[in-house]
């Protein structure tokens, strides 16, 4: 349960923290190494301890056998020896053997008569020291001991108190009393304790070593990661616009080089940005100055032209026509200037949206109304189809009106007198306006260029409404400023459809447009049926 909570966090930490990863890998690998070494040492020390103890026991048992045999030999027993004397001899032998071993208290002794031998005139009762663990001497061992006189046999056993032990067995011969087996049981728990102590020391030492390695790695990684982290934090600040942040440069090492090159980069970035900001500021100033400087004389010209135009009836025909031309061309100049200024304002990034709640359906209807006189003149039937969009959208109404004026103007100009359908619809994320004409259309290649400045579909084509060639470029900028889309579909002979899609709520990205592009064709039928 707790694992389930911690595991993802640990995994994330692993992914995120280089420091954690490095320390973890180091600790795991060094634990493996220390573990292997420790295990090897523990095993080899253990086997060494055991074999040296066994050799010692072997030698001791042989000596004990020798002493016992000598004692028996020194007291030759005859057929009529008193059994009590013989018994005393057995006890003497037992004592002598006991005192000859290195660990007197720890060794148990048993003297057993070998089974299956013919009856002898005398016999020694089996004797054993107190607490002799009879069960450790197995019948198999006794058989082996009986079958190999003059040799000491050793066998590892488990003592009744669960300690490891060794039983040493050898054969004795007592004259007139047959052969006997001498068993010595040695307790190895002292060796076991030594081994345990060594293992514990190894384990604790290994643990300390791993912890030490982990700590050292942590510190080293920190030394290296620290500056990198600082560099990352500093570049984040730099990206956020704090152009004056720098990394402190200390020393001559690779970290200092990193700091120096980073600071160099920051310096040049700051210079570039300051320069660009200055350029942009100059550009905006220029736009503003041009705006004033050009508009004032243009206003004078306009006023003069209009005064002349108003009196043209009093002029001779040539002068009257001149006044008319002056009037219309000044107007055209004015529109062009306004568009140019708008474009340069966009280029300088000096535009701001003035959003207000606007009912786009009503706005579209207004725009269509103001265009209907011109459309009627061309025989276009302007229609609004609005399945959706009846709510207040947060848009800059002036800019949307301007986009619509451009799109409608284009549609009327290139619509060949056929119907023009304006569709308004909305969905969860967006509201869209599409202007569809069934006029001459364009090739796909041309459609790609419609938003280019001063681009004309066909230079020879007569311009009657008289756009500046900047209208669609500005419309696109207006749409982008709203975080919206302005797209076109067109096909030669089938007409054109412009679709403007705006986010329903400011700042919430558009998922899909509510109107299809290329346009769904049933619109034509509906329109034809209505017309």
């Amino acid at each position, binding site marked *: 349960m707790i694992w389930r909570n911690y595991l993802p966090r640990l995994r994330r930490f692993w992914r995120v923290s280089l420091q954690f990863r490095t320390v973890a890998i180091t600790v795991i690998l060094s634990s493996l190494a220390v573990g292997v070494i420790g295990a090897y040492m523990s095993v080899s020390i253990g086997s060494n301890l055991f074999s040296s103890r066994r050799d010692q026991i072997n030698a001791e048992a042989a000596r004990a056998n020798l002493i016992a045999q000598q004692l028996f030999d020194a007291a030759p027993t005859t057929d009529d020896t008193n059994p009590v004397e013989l018994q005393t001899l057995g006890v003497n032998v037992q004592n002598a053997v006991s005192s000859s071993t290195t660990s007197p208290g720890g060794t148990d002794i048993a003297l057993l008569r070998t089974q299956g031998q013919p009856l002898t005139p005398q016999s020694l009762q089996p004797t054993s020291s107190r607490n002799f663990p009879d069960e450790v001497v197995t019948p198999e061992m006794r058989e082996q001991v009986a079958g190999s006189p003059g040799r000491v046999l050793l066998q590892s056993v488990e003592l009744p108190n669960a300690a490891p032990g060794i039983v040493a067995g050898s054969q004795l011969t007592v004259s007139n009393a047959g052969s006997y087996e001498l068993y010595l049981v040695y307790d190895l728990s002292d060796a076991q304790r030594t081994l345990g102590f060594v293992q514990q020391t190894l384990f604790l030492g290994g643990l300390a070593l791993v912890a030490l390695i982990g700590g050292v790695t942590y510190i080293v990684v920190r030394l290296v990661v620290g500056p990198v982290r600082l560099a990352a934090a500093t570049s984040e600040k730099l990206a956020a616009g704090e152009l004056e942040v720098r990394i402190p440069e200390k020393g001559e090492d690779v970290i200092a080089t990193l700091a120096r090159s980073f600071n160099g980069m920051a310096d040049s970035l700051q210079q570039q940005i300051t320069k660009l900001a200055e350029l942009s500021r100059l550009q905006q100033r220029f736009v503003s100055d041009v705006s004033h400087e050009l508009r004032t004389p*243009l206003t004078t010209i306009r006023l003069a032209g209009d005064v002349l135009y108003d009196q043209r009836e009093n002029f001779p025909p040539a002068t009257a026509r001149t006044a008319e031309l002056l009037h219309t061309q000044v107007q055209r100049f004015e529109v062009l200037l306004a568009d140019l200024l708008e474009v340069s304002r966009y280029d300088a990034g000096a535009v701001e949206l003035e959003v207000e709640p606007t009912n786009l359906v009503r706005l579209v209807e207004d725009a269509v109304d103001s265009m209907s006189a011109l459309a009627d003149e061309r025989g276009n039937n302007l229609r609004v189809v609005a399945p959706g969009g009846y709510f207040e959208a947060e848009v800059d109404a002036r800019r949307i009106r301007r986009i619509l004026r451009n799109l409608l103007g284009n549609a009327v100009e290139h619509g060949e007198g056929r119907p023009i359908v304006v569709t308004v619809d909305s969905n969860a994320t967006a509201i869209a306006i599409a202007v569809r004409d069934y006029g001459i259309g364009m090739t796909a290649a041309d459609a790609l260029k419609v938003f280019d400045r001063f681009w004309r579909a066909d230079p020879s084509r007569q311009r009657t409404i008289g756009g500046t060639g900047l209208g669609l470029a500005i419309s696109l900028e207006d749409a982008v400023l709203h975080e919206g889309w302005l797209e076109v579909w067109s096909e030669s002979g089938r007409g054109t459809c412009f679709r403007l899609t705006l986010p329903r709520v400011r700042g919430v990205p558009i998922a899909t447009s509510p109107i299809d592009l290329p346009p769904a064709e049933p619109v034509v039928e509906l329109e034809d049926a209505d017309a």
Partner: protein
Amino acid sequence: MHALPLGVSNSKTGTMTARILVVDDDTALAEMIGIVLRTEGFEPIFCADGSGAFAAFMDSKPDLVLLDLMLPGKDGIQVCAEIRAESGVPVIMLTAKSDTSDVVRGLESGADDYVVKPFNPKELVARIRTRLRPTPSGVTDTLQIGDLDVDVPGHEVRRGSAKINLTPLEFELLLALALKPQQVFTREMLLEQVWGYHYKADTRLVNVHVQRLRAKVEEDPDNPRIVMTVRGVGYRAGSSG
């Protein structure tokens, strides 16, 4: 400071033509505007720089001021504030910029209306005529709006016995609301009725002037009782009494 002259003193007599002070540093434009104004029957007076504009205003006592926003010496916004401190005479700004901040600053300094260069003569004259037209006289002589008394023929607004000085534009705005206390006015309606725009114009004109009006007539402008906001629609008069 003497009381603000309300109404249009010269034109009221009917014998004299309205005098218009044109403050513009571009002499060609000023002269051209002069020609247009004379053709329309106005009498233009000229001033070419900002620092002399206020003196020229005090000397000539014009009926209306056409004020360029960018002037040498002192900028148009300052000049406008100086004139407003002294008089309620209509001020129309001539601006080369349609940039939001300049227009709003101009309106906030007290200009009644603005015309963006390049303008045509008809547009300019229409704006001037709207500002010079006499206030439509109501059927009643005195109206109530909130706790204010509006004396229509006398062009006076009082709260109790205290007189509140309004410019003619502010008076007209208040009057428009007071004449139809039940009506909610959209910004477009007010633009048409008070400013004489018959097409969609800049609604900031209404917003800024409502603010200025409230600053004068409301006891607490943040919590208006006279000029009420109807959210999403526009404004209406506060109930009287």
